[in-house]
C-alpha cells in the first residue's frame, strides 16, 4: 500500500472500528470491579495501530497492529482489520508496554558529558554540545545554541544555565552548572549563519570535553569539505546517539520558526535520518554533529516536520567552523 492509503485506513479503523470497540470495552468494564481505572471515553491499553514499511519497495507500506492482550491476536476484531487492510497487515503481540528508563542524557551528569540535557533556567531543555576555548583569554566555555543558553536573545549575561534542563527536572539554583557568557544574536530581519552561545562553567563543575559516549574520543574539527551522502552522528538529549546522512550543504533561505517569530538562515547543512528513525527531535538542539573520524562538523539547531527517507523530517545544523569563528573560540578536544 502507498503511505497515504495506510494512513487513511488507520484513521478510518480508529474512528469506525477501534473507537466503538474500545468504548464498548469501557462500558463493559464499568460494571466490573476495575471500573474506575479507565475513565469514560478513555481507550483501554489493548491495541495500537501504526504504519510499517513493507518489503524492499520504497513506496510499500502496511498497517502495523500491536496487541497487548494475547487473547486478541486471533479475535474477530483482528479478522475485521485484516479484511479491511486486504491482508496487508502486520499483527504482533507486544504485551504490556512500560515506560523506558530515563536516558542518561536526560539525567544529572557530573562531570557534564557531550550530549547531556542542559538549558537556560527559562528554557525547557537542549543539549550540551561540547567545550570551546576563547581565542582571547583562553577561557573554557560550554557550547550550545542561542535558543538553548540565551533564550532567543532574551537572557542576560550571567544568568543561570541548568543541567539537566528545567524540563528534565533541573532546579535553579541547585542544578546551576554555568552562567550565560556570550551569544550571537538571532536576527529576525536579516539572514543568519549561526544559532550559538557559550556559558561559563561554575566553579568546581566538572566536564568531559573529549568523550563521545559510545563512539570514542572527539578528534577536533573537520577541515576537509563535506561530501553529500556522507554519514554523520550526534549525541542528543532527546534521541540519544543517532547516525544520519548529509543530504544538502550550503543551504540558503531556510525559514525557522522560533518562539519570537521566523528567522532565515543561510549556508546550512541538512541531515536525514533513516527510513524508520529520525536523526533528531526537539531537545536535541545544541548537539555536536561529527563525522566517521569523530571530527566535529556542525552544531544542530533545527528540524523539519517532513522530508527525507520515510518522510520523518530533516535536521539542520550550522557548520562548526562558522560557529567557532563567530564565537572567536576553538573546540576543545
Amino acid at each position, binding site marked *: 500500500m502507498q503511505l497515504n492509503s495506510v494512513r487513511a485506513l488507520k484513521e478510518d479503523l480508529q474512528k469506525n472500528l477501534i473507537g466503538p470497540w474500545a468504548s464498548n470495552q469501557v462500558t463493559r468494564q464499568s460494571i466490573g470491579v476495575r471500573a474506575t481505572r479507565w475513565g469514560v471515553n478513555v481507550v483501554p491499553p489493548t491495541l495500537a495501530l501504526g504504519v510499517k514499511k513493507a518489503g524492499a519497495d520504497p513506496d510499500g507500506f502496511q498497517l502495523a497492529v500491536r496487541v497487548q492482550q494475547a487473547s486478541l491476536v486471533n479475535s474477530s476484531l483482528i479478522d475485521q482489520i485484516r479484511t479491511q487492510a486486504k491482508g496487508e497487515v502486520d499483527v504482533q503481540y507486544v504485551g504490556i508496554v512500560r515506560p523506558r528508563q530515563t536516558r542518561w542524557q536526560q539525567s544529572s551528569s557530573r562531570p557534564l558529558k557531550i550530549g547531556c540535557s542542559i538549558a537556560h533556567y527559562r528554557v525547557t531543555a537542549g543539549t550540551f554540545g561540547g567545550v570551546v576555548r576563547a581565542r582571547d583569554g583562553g577561557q573554557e566555555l560550554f557550547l550550545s545554541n542561542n535558543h538553548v543558553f540565551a533564550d532567543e536573545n532574551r537572557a542576560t549575561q550571567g544568568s543561570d544555565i541548568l543541567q539537566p534542563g528545567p524540563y528534565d527536572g533541573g532546579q535553579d539554583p541547585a542544578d546551576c552548572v554555568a552562567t550565560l557568557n556570550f551569544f550571537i544574536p538571532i536576527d529576525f530581519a536579516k539572514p543568519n549563519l549561526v544559532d550559538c552561545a557559550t556559558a561559563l562553567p561554575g566553579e568546581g563543575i566538572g566536564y568531559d570535553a573529549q568523550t563521545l559516549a559510545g563512539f570514542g574520543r572527539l578528534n577536533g574539527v573537520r577541515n576537509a569539505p563535506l561530501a553529500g551522502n556522507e554519514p554523520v552522528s550526534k549525541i542528543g538529549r532527546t534521541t540519544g546517539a543517532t547516525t544520519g546522512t548529509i543530504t*544538502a550543504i550550503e543551504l540558503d533561505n*531556510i525559514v525557522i520558526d522560533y518562539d519570537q517569530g521566523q528567522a532565515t538562515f543561510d549556508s546550512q547543512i541538512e541531515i536525514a535520518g533513516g527510513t524508520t528513525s529520525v536523526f533528531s527531535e526537539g531537545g536535541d538542539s545544541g548537539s555536536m554533529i561529527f563525522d566517521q573520524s569523530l571530527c566535529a562538523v556542525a552544531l544542530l539547531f533545527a528540524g523539519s516536520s517532513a522530508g527525507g527517507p520515510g518522510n520523518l523530517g530533516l535536521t539542520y545544523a550550522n557548520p562548526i567552523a562558522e560557529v567557532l569563528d563567530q564565537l572567536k573560540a576553538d573546540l576543545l578536544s
Partner: protein
Amino acid sequence: MAATIAQARKAKEKVKALVAANLSLRNALAGIGISTIDSGYGVKVNFANEVAEQSTLPRTLDGVPLVISIVGRVSKR
C-alpha cells in the same frame, strides 16, 4: 556528465532567482542548497508544501540536475 560543485553553485543562484520571481514559490520556499546527485552535484530545492508552480521549475539547469523536496515547516529543536 556529472555536474561539478562549481556548476551546482552557479545553478543554485539561478534557481534562487527563478523562485524569487514567483510569489507562490517564494512563499513556500524552505531552502535551496547543494546536494549529491548521480555521483555529481545538483541543486536541492525544499518547499514547506506543494504548490502548483513547482512544475514550472526546470529538471536541469545548465546541465545541473534539480531535485524538489517537500519538508514541511522547519522549527528550532
